């Protein structure tokens, strides 16, 4: 591809998608950041751990269920 073709593509792209160097934020995001910092960390409920342990044990002791599990996924 020549430099001329590259320049033509650049020109076309800039016509369709004007550069956004001067996009303004418009509002202070610090309050939203504080909310995010204050949010409790995501924790899995104990029941999910039980299900995970059960599924792992089943796969470990009854490997024959793996194709069935894969089929249903």
């Amino acid at each position, binding site marked *: *591809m020549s430099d001329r*073709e*590259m320049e*033509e*593509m*650049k*020109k*076309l*792209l*800039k*016509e*369709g*998608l*004007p*550069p*956004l*160097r*001067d*996009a*303004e*934020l418009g509002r*202070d*995001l*610090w309050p*939203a*950041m504080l909310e*995010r*910092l204050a949010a409790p960390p995501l924790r899995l409920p104990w029941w999910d751990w039980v299900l995970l342990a059960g599924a792992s044990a089943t796969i470990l002791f009854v490997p024959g269920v793996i194709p069935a599990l894969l089929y249903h996924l």
Partner: protein
Amino acid sequence: MELLERFAAGDLEAFETLFRQYQCDVFRWIMRIVRDRAAAEDLTLETFWRMYRAHARFDVAKGNCGGWLRRIATNAALDHLRRKRREVPLPEDTPDVPKAPPEEQSELRQTIFSAMDRLSPRLRVAILLALVEEEPYDSIAEVLGISVNAVKVRVFRGVRILRKELSAAGVHP
């Protein structure tokens, strides 16, 4: 203690100072990649969230907070583009540049966006930054964590695919 040292030690006030200092720059940078105001605001928060969580890994000796933030922001934007690859909406925030009649320009923009949507996010980001935003290749290489040659290869490959897609849509550069 210096601001960056306090931030690296986990000081929330130092983080707030840095947040206020850089939030506009980070937003503007992300906007140039994702071209969607709502997504850019979310990703700005995500960038600072990642920054805060990684405060202990910040290299105070280098002291380049702006560069570090740009790399985090670029990664966050790339993650967003990967997630949203199949549903890129037409941006409403792009400034009006009256080079063509509005309907024609809107149609052209839609065609270009559809073609861009078929590019992988890494090619798309390279093209947007290099050809649309005219960022220097070395600064693109720095934020993407690759060599300048690798950026050139991505731009070249992306343009080749774009030409094909645009030609198929009846737009000939």
